[in-house]
């Protein structure tokens, strides 16, 4: 059976989710086509979850514009949707003389990027804020508005708002090919043909492949860049308030130490180029290196236990900037190579794409009184469900996930279809015991709900 939409978005990563929301609120009939069983299963699955100000983004880049517009919109909508923010701020730390010499230029870049509230800090001033840093530190500067958010509930909320207001989502639905007849696209999927006036390529790690498939060519090539992380337990998160950044090098932003919104502490990511677009392999020696690196920055980390590991793939290309292109002859927009700031920029990128579509002639009429979803609050700096009456008891003890939270997730319109999806939404089994206590109980709960084993 074929269906007709105004816009078909290919890919339910954070970018696709945000675009779906923007266009739906703009009055378009939208479908999101996602090849994986779950949303957020590509690049968006694993990141550092920092809401960037863009202080270190390339000057004059589209990336910078999208990050800053995205930041503002996140601030504007997070209250209504019950999305968290931890305004911890970042410190850019100099450990050597050379690094110290580069701080002024980095601050200058921040000013020019419109991030004017950065402040230089002497060694003493830095230790007053972060007493657990390695004493060899020389100087730093502070970026007060760099913040932490929930990398799951935010994109989830964007897509949910689209769905609540009329958009459709097809999972397990890879786009295998497509034809543009001068007015409409017909996209081929295993679940039938999908017709749409416009197509948005938000295929992340497959952005170039999808352009080749639909347009016969791509103006960029994705070079997946892997980032590995080690995560420490809640106690380690007490060791620092700020996002601790190194002075970047030409090739990488370097290893970050920061808390997560859930009150753990992460060290990472690495930046490793690879061909494989699917698998982000963890490597023992690299994980050891991250552990050591973390303990160089915060010596007390030496004594802390690593509680979990993960790795993600950035959709990097040969270009530094985002590759957002309109294809006017074929009613298509490619939103490619959203490399390492997509979580921050998503809402801004979506607004930008909305404007590009309008230029292509897509009509907009904003919805009046759109429905706004309310998300579960999993942030450690907010009141959690385990502290409230009627929570039905705790399912996962390490991350203190309640049965009420678990059941809400299972009854959500975007309910997970797998253990992994459940885990990402609730954080159950993601804590220090890694399922020792609740692993089987969680599986039992999912079995009762008829969720597949994966």
């Amino acid at each position, binding site marked *: 059976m074929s269906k007709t939409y105004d816009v078909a978005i290919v890919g339910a990563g954070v970018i696709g989710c945000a675009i779906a929301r923007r266009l739906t609120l703009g009055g378009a009939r939208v479908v999101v086509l996602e090849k994986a069983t779950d949303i957020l299963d590509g690049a968006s699955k694993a990141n550092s979850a920092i809401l960037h100000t863009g202080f270190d983004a390339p000057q004059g880049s589209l990336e910078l514009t999208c990050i800053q517009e995205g930041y503002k919109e996140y601030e504007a909508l997070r209250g209504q949707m019950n999305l968290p923010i931890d305004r911890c701020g970042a410190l850019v730390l100099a450990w050597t003389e050379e690094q110290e010499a580069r701080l002024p230029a980095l601050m200058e870049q921040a000013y020019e990027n419109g991030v004017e509230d950065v402040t230089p800090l002497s060694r003493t001033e830095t230790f007053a804020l972060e007493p657990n840093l390695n004493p060899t530190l020389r100087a730093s500067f502070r970026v007060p508005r760099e913040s932490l958010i929930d990398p799951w509930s935010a994109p989830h909320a964007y897509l949910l708002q689209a769905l609540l207001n009329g958009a459709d989502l097809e999972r397990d639905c890879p786009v295998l090919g497509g034809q543009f007849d001068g007015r409409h696209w017909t996209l081929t999927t295993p679940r039938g043909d999908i017709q749409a006036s416009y197509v948005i390529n938000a295929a992340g790690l497959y952005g170039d492949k999808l352009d080749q498939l639909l347009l016969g060519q791509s103006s960029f090539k994705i070079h997946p860049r892997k980032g590995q992380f080690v995560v420490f337990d809640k106690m380690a998160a007490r060791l620092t308030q700020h996002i601790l950044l190194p002075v970047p090098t030409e090739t990488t932003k370097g290893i970050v130490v920061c808390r997560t919104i859930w009150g753990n502490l992460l060290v990472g990511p690495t930046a490793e180029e690879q061909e494989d677009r699917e698998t982000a392999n963890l490597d*023992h020696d690299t994980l050891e290196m991250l552990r050591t690196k973390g303990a160089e920055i915060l010596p007390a980390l030496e004594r802390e236990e690593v509680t979990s590991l993960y790795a993600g793939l950035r959709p990097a290309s040969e270009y530094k900037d985002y590759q957002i292109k309109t294809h006017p002859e074929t009613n298509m927009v490619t939103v490619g190579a959203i490399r390492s700031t997509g979580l921050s920029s998503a809402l801004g990128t979506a607004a930008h794409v909305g404007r590009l579509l309008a230029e292509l002639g897509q009509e907009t009429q904003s919805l009046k009184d759109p429905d706004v979803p309310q998300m579960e609050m999993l942030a450690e700096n907010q009141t959690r469900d*385990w502290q409230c009456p009627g929570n039905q008891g705790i399912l996962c*003890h390490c991350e203190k996930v309640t049965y009420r939270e678990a059941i809400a997730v299972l009854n959500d319109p975007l309910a997970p279809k797998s253990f992994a999806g459940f885990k990402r939404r609730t954080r159950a089994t993601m804590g220090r*015991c890694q*399922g020792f206590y609740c692993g089987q109980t969680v599986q039992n709960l999912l079995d009762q709900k008829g969720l597949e084993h994966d």
Partner: protein
Amino acid sequence: MTDTQLNFDVIVVGSGPAGLSAAIELKRLGVGSVLVVEREKHAGGIPRHCLHSPYGMREWNRLMFGPAYARRLTQDALKAGVDIHCETTVTALKPDGEIEVSSNAGLQTLTGRAVLLAMGARETSRSALLIGGTKPKGVMNTATLQNYAAFSDDMPFKRPVIVGTELVSFSALITCRSHGIKPAAMLEANTRITTRFPCYLTPKAMGVPLFLSTQIVQIHGKRQVEAVTVIGPSGPDTLQCDGVIFTGGFRPENALLRSSDFDLDSGSLGPKIDQYGRVREPGYFCAGNILRGVETAGWCWNEGRKVAHCIVAGLQGNLPPRTQVDISAQASGSDHAIKFSLPQAISPSAPKAPVAFDKLQLRLSDKYTGNVVIGTTTHRISSKPERRILLPLPQSPFSSKALP
């Protein structure tokens, strides 16, 4: 416990063998109100899901399976008049025996004139070991495997590898074999297996190859485990399997202690106690695996019982003040040989103060033969790692009454 009762003579945190035996003994000794708080749905602790022996020998001179043992302890506790509150998690420990608990009712504060901490221990996860590869399903600890065996219709795999050769590793092996699972191999990084065990339980007798000097480095598979890469004496190799069981490497379930700023021993990762089982924070006692990773259930049961006597003495005002001076054991020939020793402090003795820890419990992290110095005394030992070693407590100036 009536819903409104918030104050108790003694509150016990954790309903494993240590917590329940203490609670039963407290009632037997005439303590008025004893509440056991347990975060799981049912009381009994780890033995609830251990579908195997040996349990019960020390306690009742009977060989039992874990679930029957857990039921009996729970029933004995209820019969003795102990209140047990399940699905109630202790989330913070505060001064003077005030504890914060979370349950369906939200947060509440309960107060015990004394509080016994018996939260047990857990195994080390794959993540803590920094094992590389992907994160498919089918990777777990022994306890999780046993939870599947005890409470699920399906087992999570058919042909896993078992990593480790501690006592609990053989529990994993037995649980597998009695549930239609044939492990692909048992792996041990060292040159010999860690535990002593009866020969009828050898992996070979169970049809499972044992690879010594073999380390797991990578786990492969997208959804379910498909294989693991190991490095053995003859280099890297791939083993086909559909699961990985990480066994042992027990560590105290100490997060509650850490978040409540209790002083921990960096060797045992448990709290620092004196010979009465007291920590520094007034009103708090400890027993069982929270003290040191792992002991047998019988040992923990006995420890709970003995600490109950000290708690009663404490309630009656018969315990001398706790010393703030720690003692420790030093191996003369090695800085690393000693993993931990407990108790970590010796308080003064007193005529009416029963001693729960009348021996120094020592555990090695490496094989060691040589002298161990405790205070002013020297002992000669020779032992393998992870074995229970008992030495006399350093002399104390007063006489004291050891418990059986």
